[in-house]
């Protein structure tokens, strides 16, 4: 690598090679966009709201990268992915807030964010392994249903609050913000002088200024992308591809299919837990309503839209769906109303009881279910490989007729 960089000829050749690879181009564009986005957004709008939104989008990118390991690499359909997200978020919320004081423990716990980030990851991965161990021998569609059931059970348990641990519908609020030991004050923060700050009090992330969260998220995503890319080209990644394409053949070649699938499931869950801990800190509030089935489906839509099995594609898909769901469709009612006002269709704005017309704003606000559904159906029918497909996966999905239904048949050990 270093030798390549030193030699200008080889470097040029390498760059040319990268510029022909759409994945590398996407990575490059994304990285540049990630760096220039916060100053650009705050310059254009005068606030850091957009940066905060981008940091939230990062959570979904993490989730999509994680689900891509399960669905894209190993070919297991997980419809309860939000459960692991919830487990991660609750792990952080319980161990970094005053919540446990009102629990049977009677003692609040405040562990640092950096420890909990990994603890949440570990807890979620364990939950994935515990759910996966007995269920991964099921066929693909049965597995989907089991995970769906699990995904429905987990938020309900948090909501029903057995033993008064989780706060139930009251949610957990007042969650600690991450702190770093050393930080540098400067014009970018409130103090205008360059000053090295020490200690948790001075260097705490603040909810009012999401830039620190944004930077943290970008770092987390970069780390995860490197990790997952290495996993994909490793022995394990090849084993996942083998299992996905033909489980019987993979087993015959000496792949331990059960462990391989369990690893995919656990690693996928780990990313979700990771994202969950970050999400709890960023929002400072964890409520059981934030983890319903729509979350699992939204992440699935991101993966399917972006291109199953291709990491930059999945990141693009996550960003596109996030923008669509949380910015475009959220603003659409207001924009539609403004447009109606301008073109002289004010009559549409008011609700009309006789024709049960709810008013334009309300009507447009109801679109999001339909949009998610349409994306799923149209993508699967017209471009099942996604907007930025993985080359292998595109071949697989295109090979009509040749693809027999054993591709996702994971029924080893079943009668």
């Amino acid at each position, binding site marked *: 690598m270093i030798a390549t960089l030193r030699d200008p000829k080889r470097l040029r050749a390498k760059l040319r090679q990268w510029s022909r690879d759409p994945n590398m181009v996407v990575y490059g564009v994304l990285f540049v966009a990630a760096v220039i986005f916060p100053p650009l957004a705050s310059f254009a709008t005068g606030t850091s709201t957009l940066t905060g939104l981008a940091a939230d989008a990062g959570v979904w990118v993490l989730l999509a990268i994680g689900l891509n390991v399960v*669905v894209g690499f190993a*070919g297991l*359909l997980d*419809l309860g992915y939000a459960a692991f997200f919830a487990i991660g978020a609750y792990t952080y919320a319980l161990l970094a807030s005053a919540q446990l004081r009102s629990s049977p423990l009677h003692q609040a716990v405040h562990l640092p964010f950096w420890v909990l980030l990994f603890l949440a990851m570990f807890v979620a991965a364990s939950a994935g392994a515990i759910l996966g161990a*007995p*269920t991964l021998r*099921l066929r*693909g*569609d*049965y597995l*989907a*249903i*089991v995970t*769906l*059931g*699990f995904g*429905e*059970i987990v938020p*309900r*348990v948090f*909501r*029903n609050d057995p033993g008064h641990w989780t706060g139930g519908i009251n949610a957990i609020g007042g969650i600690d913000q991450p702190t770093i030991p050393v930080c540098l004050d400067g014009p970018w923060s409130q103090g205008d002088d360059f000053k090295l700050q020490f200690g948790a009090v001075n260097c705490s992330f603040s909810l009012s200024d999401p830039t620190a969260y944004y930077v943290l998220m970008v770092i987390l995503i970069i780390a995860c992308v490197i990790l997952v890319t290495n996993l994909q080209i490793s022995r394990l990644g090849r084993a996942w591809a083998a299992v996905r394409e033909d489980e019987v053949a993979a087993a015959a070649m000496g792949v331990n299919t059960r462990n391989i699938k369990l690893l995919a499931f656990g690693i996928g869950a780990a990313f979700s837990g990771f994202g969950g801990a970050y999400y709890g800190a960023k929002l400072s509030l964890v409520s059981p309503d934030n983890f319903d*089935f729509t979350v699992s*489906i939204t992440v*699935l839509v991101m993966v*399917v839209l972006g291109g199953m099995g291709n990491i930059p594609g999945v990141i693009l898909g996550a960003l596109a769906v996030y923008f669509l769901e949380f910015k475009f469709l959220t603003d659409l009612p207001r924009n539609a109303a403004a447009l109606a006002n301008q073109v002289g269709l004010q009559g549409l704005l008011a609700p009309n009881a006789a024709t*049960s017309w*709810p008013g334009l704003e*309300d*009507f447009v606000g*109801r*679109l*999001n*279910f*339909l*949009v*998610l*559904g*349409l*994306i*799923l*159906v149209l993508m*699967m*029918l017209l471009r*099942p490989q996604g907007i930025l497909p993985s080359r292998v996966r595109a071949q*697989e*999905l295109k090979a*009509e*007729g040749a*693809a027999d*239904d054993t*591709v*996702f*048949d994971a*029924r080893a050990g*079943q*009668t």
Partner: protein
Amino acid sequence: MSGLLAILWVIYLGAEDPAGLIATLVIGITDGAMFALVALGYTMVYGIIELINFAHGDVFTLGGFLGLPLLGLFGITSGTKFAWVYVPILVFVFVLVMGLNGLVNITIERVAYRPLRNAPRLAPLITAIGMSFILEGAMYLWRGPVSLRFPNLLPDTVASRFTSPAGHFGLNSGSTAAPLIDIGVKDVAVVISTVVLVILLSVFINRTKLGKAMRATAQDRDAAQLMGIDINRTISATFFIGAALAGAGGMIWALYFNSIRFDLGFTTGLIAFTAAVLGGIGNIEGAALGGLLIGIIRALNERYLSASWSDVVIFGILIMVLVFRPTGLLGMRVPEK
């Protein structure tokens, strides 16, 4: 083993408070009948093309959503009460809703599932989830997030009345008067209409030519095709019948509870799917039995444990059955390839 324990527990509950148990069982059987109607559609579709038709729960809701304006055409509004003149109208609307629902489901199959019949298994499942969201989204767009009020067209009269000797019944515990348990005409009507539909279905499947074609297609699609069976027509018919039953279920549900909401189908669909799996997916009698059992389990849980846990219990059962006995109680009639 666990089944035995459950039965012992029910007997114990019955000895403790017979009236309460009877009331609970009535609720359970009535609910169970409705779940069974939905479960039949899941099981038929799975039996024939091995697809978990995710959109089926929403097709069920659609039945109620279509029924309301159709009843409105006959001047029946949400305030209308039972009268004998409405009975033929109701029957007519039922048939109409079943037909329309069937056509919707045939369209769904034609558009979203048929092009993917030879694709990897995951593909049609994802489109099915998408179709479910589309249906739910369409109903949401149409009627919004509110519960629709449905006319109370079934008589509220009491068919049979029990008195409880034990004298502690739910919230009235401690009151001196012997509480009464009523079985309404409503409950009886729900159960009877379900039984009629299930009998019609089983006659259709076992006695008619198309039913025979369905069984053949479920057993071996290629062989059935070689025998001259029109596979596409048979599969369409299956979707039609499944949706018709679900539509009837949706109407019955709406008439019984007098309200319906666009997202009813998600949870109800999952519960019905659990029923189908519990009975043995692909097995018609299994779906009916599973529906009944799930209804009773749910009612027992709501009365003796806690209503907020009932979904957790049902989905727990779903996971347990899939893990330990994926063939369900009655087993699959269609052997796995």
